[in-house]
């Protein structure tokens, strides 16, 4: 057989191989399925709303709270300091710098349990580290932090500290979310700019 024909066969074979490769290799889960199952059973991926309230009060710079709800829901009310990455836009390359990084801990929340856990599984499957979930989502935050009430005659120091944390977080939440829309947008835009600069962006 002519060497040219052999080479053509080789090239056609190479084309076949390319045809079998995943459409977008960079967006295929890197973790093996059984590893992901084991990781998903780890309860350390969860933060309680009280832990998140403490991070909010302390303006903890090692924590980034990620709101996965729609833009409209986010603008209506959000946890102070959170960044909005709507879930349907989760894998947009614009957000990759936020989700795929090793500097801060991302804490995902939606309104309930589903969206944040789906997002966590996708991010972890893709091999992105440092992603966590706020247990119970915004509904749990509202129930525990915004509507918490102390009833009783005596309060232990521990209960008092917890109540103070919730009260402070509630005040911050109400302050931020009561701002007129224009001021709120300015605040969020300034925060987004600050974060993109910290991430090495050029906006």
């Amino acid at each position: 057989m002519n060497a040219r024909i052999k080479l053509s066969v080789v090239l056609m074979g190479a084309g076949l191989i390319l045809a079998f490769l995943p459409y977008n290799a960079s967006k295929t889960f890197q973790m093996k399925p059984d590893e992901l199952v084991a990781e998903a059973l780890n309860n350390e991926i969860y933060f309680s709303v009280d832990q998140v309230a403490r991070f909010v009060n302390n303006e903890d710079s090692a924590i980034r709270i990620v709101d996965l709800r729609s833009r409209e829901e986010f603008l209506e009310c959000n946890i102070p300091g959170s960044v909005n990455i709507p879930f349907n836009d989760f894998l947009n390359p614009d957000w990759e710098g936020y989700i795929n990084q090793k500097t801060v801990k991302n804490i995902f929340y939606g309104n309930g349990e589903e969206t944040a856990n789906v997002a966590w599984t996708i991010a972890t499957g893709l091999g992105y580290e440092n992603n966590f979930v706020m247990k119970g989502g915004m509904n749990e935050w509202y129930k525990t932090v915004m509507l918490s009430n102390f009833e009783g005659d005596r309060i232990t120091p521990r209960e008092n500290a917890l109540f103070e944390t919730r009260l402070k977080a509630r005040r911050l939440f109400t302050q931020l979310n009561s701002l007129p829309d224009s001021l709120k947008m300015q605040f969020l835009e300034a925060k987004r700019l600050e974060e993109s600069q910290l991430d090495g962006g050029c906006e």
Partner: protein
Amino acid sequence: MKGIRLFLVFFVVLVVLVIVRTTNKNLFKNDASGAVQAAQKNLVSVSQLKNSAGSFLLVSIDPEPVSHPFAAENTIHIPFEKLLEKDNRKKLQNEKGGILLYSTNLALSSKAWVILNQLKFSNVYILSEEENPEEFKYTFQPEPSIRLE
């Protein structure tokens, strides 16, 4: 000629590696963005299930079997950690209708759903006791008098 032979050997090795990778069941091959799209409509509520005429296999994935009021005849128990065992995978693959994942913890069924979706199970849904668990149940009342400290 010797060069071509060497190249052919290399090519055959490459083909074998690609075949091994393509047929390996312990690898994800789907595009993750497909999960983001499919997650928008992956919930089936109990009322929808009651009104549905389609056939479903209900898979309870809690560590222990849970008896629930909507248990269908076609119900099996596969604990989440055993979801990918060969026999269990086969049971899921053999299901021609829809597969409904159920857990008392919605977080667990959500994670199981993503894993199965990325393993090319396109007929998997999450059974939810609530009509819309991702709905915000409260209304925030702004306080116009409030000022930033």
